[in-house]
């Protein structure tokens, strides 16, 4: 369907053509789960839409030798159900599963969650922890790569130029185990008040070689939890109790939001978020080791 206010490009070439005439009233639409709210709240009526959901290559999850490529229009439901994602990036599967409601997840896309740059975005801590990269197209047809963490400014802002669009997300495959956890006003179908991705490289005996941890909703964009990373490194995952990390978890939140009234709650709540995520990783670790034993 094409009208002066609505284009639905089926090739990158026609997409570039649309991007060339994109102005501040033109919006890129994929899942529309945030866009429609934005249009309603801002009372925007005279807008134009570039619908990118007809670009088939943006809807695929593809595995290469060292990377996995996720199209910008891949939905949360597709991420949640993908064996490739489950195998290499368990935290991303988790984050996709905990985002919004089933109805939202059926429509909401990974590209949209990135570009929308909400401080509560659920996939961002995961993409930060995996140092995901974006493939970005501009109206001239030029493609550039940029890290997700460099593209996100947070609070709804990103560094994409007016004529740019995210095409793909690249994630490096790794043997690390990871998990996502969040808390909101309710236990599900809720916007994160605090979320976290923990990614651990473990030895066979569960010693933590390195940790990459990002916390969301304690700043404009996810922050790296270096204190907690440091506290975890070198310790055994098995038998790890979150109480033993309590002081550094609290310090981490204090450092992130020293002036916010919500810090008192979040300091305590972060213990729960960390325990949940570490518990999930421990379960993955046990699953992985028993699988190994089974093959022996």
């Amino acid at each position: 369907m094409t009208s002066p206010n609505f284009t639905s490009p089926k090739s990158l070439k026609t997409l570039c053509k649309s991007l060339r005439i994109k102005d501040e009233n033109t919006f890129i639409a994929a899942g529309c789960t945030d866009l429609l709210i934005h249009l309603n709240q801002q009372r925007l009526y005279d807008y134009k839409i570039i619908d990118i959901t007809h670009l088939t290559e943006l809807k695929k999850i593809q595995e290469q030798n060292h990377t996995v490529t996720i199209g910008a229009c891949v939905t949360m439901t597709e991420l949640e159900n993908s064996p490739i994602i489950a195998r290499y990036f368990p935290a991303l599967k988790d984050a996709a599963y905990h985002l919004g409601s089933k109805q939202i997840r059926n429509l909401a896309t990974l590209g949209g969650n990135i570009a929308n740059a909400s401080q509560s975005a659920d996939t961002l801590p995961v993409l930060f922890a995996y140092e995901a990269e974006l493939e970005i197209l501009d109206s001239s047809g030029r493609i550039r790569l940029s890290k997700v963490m460099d593209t996100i400014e947070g609070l709804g802002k990103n560094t994409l130029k007016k004529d740019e669009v995210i095409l793909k997300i690249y994630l490096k495959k790794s043997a690390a185990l990871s998990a996502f956890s969040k808390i909101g006003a309710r236990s599900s179908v809720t916007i994160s008040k605090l979320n976290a991705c923990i990614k651990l490289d473990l030895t066979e005996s569960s010693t933590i070689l390195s940790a990459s941890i990002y916390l969301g909703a304690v700043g404009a964009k996810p922050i790296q939890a270096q204190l907690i990373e440091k506290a975890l490194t070198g310790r055994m995952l098995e038998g790890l109790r979150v109480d033993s990390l309590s002081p550094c978890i609290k310090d981490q939140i204090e450092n992130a939001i020293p002036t916010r009234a919500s810090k008192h709650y979040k300091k305590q709540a972060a213990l729960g978020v960390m325990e949940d995520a570490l518990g999930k990783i421990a379960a993955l670790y046990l699953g992985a080791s028993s699988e190994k034993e089974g093959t022996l």
Partner: protein
Amino acid sequence: MKNLNYVGKSLLKEDSRDKSAGKTKFICDMQREGMLYAKLLLSEKPHAELSIDTREALAQTDIIAVYTYADIPKKLYNSHQWYPGIAAEFDEYLLSDKARFMGDRIALVVGKTKEAVERAIPKVKVHYTELPAVIGLEAASEIAFSKEITCGDYEKQFEKADYIIKDSGCTPKIHHAALEPHICLSELDDQNNLVVWTPCQTVFQIQHHISSVLDLPYNQIRVIKAVMGGSFGGKGQTVLEPICAFATHKLQKPVMLYMDRRDAILGTRSRNAAKMTVETAVDKEGKILARKVVAEIDGGAYYTNAAAIVMALGKKLFRLYDMKDQYYKGSTYYTHTISGGACRGYGSPQAHAITEVNMDHIAKVLNLDPCELRLRNLVSSGAKDLTGAPDIGNAQIRECVLQGMAAFAWQEKRQTIKNKNTARYAYGVGMACGVHGNGYKGAYPDFTQVDMSLLSDGSILVKISVHDQGCGTLMTMQQIAAEALDIDTSRIKVLEADTFMTPYDSAGTQASRVTFVCGGAVKNAGEKLITELINALCELKDCSSDSVETKDGCLFIKNSMQHYTYGDIAVLYELKYSKKLSVFVEYESPANPASFAACFAEVRVDKYTGEVMVLDCLAVHDIGQSVNPALVEGQIQGGAHMSLGMALFEEIEIDAKGYVKSTNFSKYHLMNAPVMPHVQVLTVEHGEPYGPYGAKSVGELAAVAPAPAVVNAINFALDTSITSYPVTPEVIISHIMNEA
């Protein structure tokens, strides 16, 4: 009691299929030739003088009119006043002269399309000159209404008491969250009558307000209760209809006035926030000697229900526990916030929220089991209301507690639940009781009229001004009529309220009066009609009424082969006597007994995140007689949903300056399906003497006891003394921190 054929059966209500298939037409689906759309512009400021420039908005394409205070009749009304006999402050205009809260009606934009209206609203230029705003009960000082209710001399008892246990707590302003935001449609009929379609609770109340504000006679105003997508009291007051009718009256065109969620939260009504202090005097044995309850109620910017909420809240305090001496004082204060209105339970949820937590506090001090403490003090069947209000009736609350204890395995759980505790999770069980009424008897005129006819094909037409809010009122009336008339419910049509078509009803579908009062009226009319029918047969066939039996729409003459359908007799009777078989009844409620409930809950509290999961919930209700068990179960589960939401999540957040923060469902948190526990339902059905077939109310009471049961369970789990609602994760964590 004779065997019941229709009452007590879980019959499917007739609109179920269409509603579940999405076929039902709500007002937003209605279309009229030349219909205009209208939307209110609500104040963005809590308190301000206004200067409004409508020129730019009026110049927009397809905009027909923009009304402000300058355009409307300068006639004040009180949106709560359901008939002219009720004393009330008149302080609302159709469109306000100044902004008295964020959400006040300040302009109406009317256009040919919704899009035109939406585009024009931001073009209405409102200049606000801000004034200081009074926000919250702490700041409030201007009293709208205050009243004491007493029995005995509580002070004397306080001197004798072994213990006086005191608790203070707050309950929040709550949004009703009906799925359908407020809406109505007005038009002129062929005779130039003003016709208003509205999903409302009292058509005669709306007729009264339109008449008084527009200065039109009642008999030119036809208000029709439309299909409703939920109310819970939120559509009880007259908010949209008069201004919509005004637009139609001015423009001589059909007008649909609609709201979105933000409007419905800001610009309608809320459950009144309350602060209560409860002091209870008890002796060592756990007998309550006396109680003093002081309630301060946030009435919001307009008078609306300032008096009603004080009375409704206070009266419940005298009908649950047996104590001779009690003092209550309730005061409603003006603030620059959303006005109060009916909300499922009308004062009972607030009252019990604090008093039932106080009961557990007493139990803790006396080292008594909370159920045991209650059993020593609950009212029994035949109890009197010592304030002089109508008798309490066949109170079966003790039975509710006893059955609940057994079904919930209360004692075992109370003793062993903490064995499940871990470093992170604390478990607890708690319970609470609640009481609610059955109409207005004793306070206001409480009667209804029924026009019931037997038609020539044997079917029955019942005209009565009921308003089905989606809970199955019509099916309830059909079942009661079917029982009285001994004919299948499918042959009975019950109309909904329509000021031109259905006869007068004194008080509307509110106050938990419909099953008890309107149901009683239908039973009474049905009994009269079946008597007329039997007499007609006797006259026609020269037999005695003793020899006549009815069965499923047929009449049998004993010891003969003769039998007739109801329709046969209707036709024969009309032919021979030139009369129609019909009755007109004006039925005044004979009583106003209490309905009771006991609720039991098990919770798991996450001491890290503050999250509370309700793992198990059992509600035991004393309802006299279930008319339709499936509908009763639905009411109790839906009521529990609202009450659990009040316990854990729901609050219209208003900041210190008066700005409302929770204007949509991502910020106003309802209990959603994943966190909603399965609510088990038990009913105690020992018959209420004056209720139709023994039935009494359930729908409002269902929203009372679950909240304090959950808070008691949390306090038991954490050994805290939380008394304010909602108990959000932040509240849990701050209590854990403070008490550590």
